[in-house]
């Protein structure tokens, strides 16, 4: 089994719900063995709808899913012993204890690790006799994760694994996911935490309204986005008083009240010239914030671009030249 093998392959995937709502509109991506792939998106972007098709819970309305080269829905029996799944929420009888729940799962999993070995990994040691309904939301997520790991899956699907966890629990989960990845597990996770995707994912796809808006390594996706300079327009000054934006290397700008936001791919040049101008003019740029492109910028940029695309009235956020002059 070669290391570069694509264990997850998704081609032109579509999912249309009963009411006619098209939640997934032609999504394609793949993940290699030992890779962490993140599906990033706002609520309603189609992440969970996509992951459920990968898990084999529903039949795609179009396109194809292959896990280990097999169809996870029709070849369920061949695929399931090699995958682990953590759903977005719930899934355990509230009146069972942690131990009883784990025992039930262990009994249904091929090659199950003993629950008492896995529960401590997620920080649930000593909770054996606690009923599921008495666990906190975060503890329930961790129980879910533990059970997804019981069968030592080759592919692990995690749907928002850290939602509801505190900062420490989140770090613990990240550490666990990295350890699994290092041992050759392929992890497909969805998240709406940008930090999580940035820190965990080898590759990611940003979903928006059922489509993939950008994909690549976090660095690639980020690099495609401009850096940003934000500051407050000094009192008595107008946008027209700033140095010509072309010379600054600025590719786009926004004006929000008195706050100016400049986008640039040449951050050093733009920042230097802006500061030199401020020095010469003798003004203070309040709230000055200079930052290179981050995944967050990329994410917001994509969401903005995509919705501007959808709306007939354009230029909702990015002001054009004439507005600038006004």
């Amino acid at each position: 089994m070669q290391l570069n093998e694509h264990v997850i392959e998704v081609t032109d995937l579509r999912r249309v719900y009963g009411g006619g709502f098209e939640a997934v509109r032609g999504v394609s991506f793949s993940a290699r063995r030992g890779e962490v792939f993140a599906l990033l998106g706002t609520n309603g972007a189609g992440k969970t709808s996509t992951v459920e098709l990968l898990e084999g819970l529903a039949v795609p309305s179009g396109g194809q899913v292959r896990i280990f080269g097999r169809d996870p829905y029709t070849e369920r029996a061949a695929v399931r012993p090699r995958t682990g799944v953590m759903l977005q929420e719930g899934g355990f009888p509230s009146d069972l204890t942690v131990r009883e729940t784990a025992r039930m799962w262990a009994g249904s999993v091929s090659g199950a690790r003993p629950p008492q070995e896995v529960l401590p990994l997620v920080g649930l040691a000593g909770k054996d006799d606690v009923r599921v309904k008495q666990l906190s939301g975060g503890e329930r997520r961790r129980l879910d994760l533990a059970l997804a790991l019981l069968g030592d899956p080759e592919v692990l699907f995690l749907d928002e694994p850290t939602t509801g966890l505190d900062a420490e629990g989140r770090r613990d989960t990240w550490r666990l996911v990295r350890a699994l990845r290092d041992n050759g597990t392929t992890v497909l996770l969805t998240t709406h935490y940008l930090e999580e995707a940035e820190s965990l994912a080898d590759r990611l796809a940003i979903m928006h309204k059922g489509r993939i808006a950008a994909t690549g390594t976090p660095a690639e996706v980020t690099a495609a986005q401009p850096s940003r300079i934000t500051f407050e327009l000094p009192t008595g000054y107008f946008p027209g008083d700033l140095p010509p934006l072309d010379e600054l290397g600025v590719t786009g700008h926004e004006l929000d009240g008195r706050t100016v936001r400049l986008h640039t791919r040449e951050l050093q040049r733009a920042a230097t010239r802006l500061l030199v101008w401020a020095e010469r003019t003798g003004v203070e740029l309040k709230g000055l914030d200079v930052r290179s492109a981050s995944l967050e910028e990329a994410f917001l940029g994509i969401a903005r671009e995509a919705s501007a695309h959808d709306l007939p009235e354009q230029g909702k956020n990015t002001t054009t030249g004439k507005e600038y002059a006004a």
Partner: protein
Amino acid sequence: MSETAGAAPTADKTDTNRTTDTTDTTEAPAAGAAGAGSGRNTAASTPAGRMRALARAELTLLGRSRGTLFAALFVPLVLPLSLYSAADKMDLDEVGLSLGAVILPGAIGFSLLFAVYSSLVGVFVTRREELVLKRLRTGELRDVEILCGASLPSLATGLVQSLLLAAGCALLLDVAAPEAVHLSVLGLLLGLVLCAALAAVTAGFTRTTESAQVTAMPVLMVSMLGSGMMVPLEVLPDRLASFCELLPLTPAMTLLRGGFTGNLSGSETLFAVAAGVAWVLLAAFAVRRWFRWEPRR
């Protein structure tokens, strides 16, 4: 079995590195024997093993659900007493039925309805609304295994209760031993399977655990009144009786009662078995068609 055998050998997982998360001492002692492997248990799960694990969990849950437990255990044991006074007033000699041949099958019928049917409607709906069914479907359990495994504790309750009722009636009412035990057994089995399947169908049309009380009523009422549980079909007008023979639980009741009286003709037996099997098949089809694995959103 065959589907687990078809799975790729688990040995090609990168076992050797898997133990880094845990200390070596927590690994199974079989590590040495497994050579390069981590000593992880690599046995494939079997349908029987998976259903046993699920049934065990459901049995625990049944023990913790007081309402269900009360209805399942108490009602079938108390209702026969009310039957007793009603049956006493019927003109049973004319139709050739003994008191025991009316009360015992009726009591077993109540057990099927309350310990199996209505409690399983609640189980299926509750598990679906808790997203347990959805979560189970992400694992190795097949759909039919989930339904069977979850049904087992209630089916066992119904079975044990029926045997206890039979023993109790034999002692207290002086019921004669069944004339044709095999018919009673067949009737009981048909009744158990059909009640579980009907419960799954009903669950498909039930939105919440609370509304299960209402959606289960039609089957409960129709069966109690029309399937020969409270009133033997023999004492009903002919036309009504022949319609009632087509109700879902009537075949099971006919066979149960026929086993005790021994006066079921060959063609009557054949019709009851055929009708019973037809209902089971119909219910199985309805489950496939209408059972819901996730809450409506």
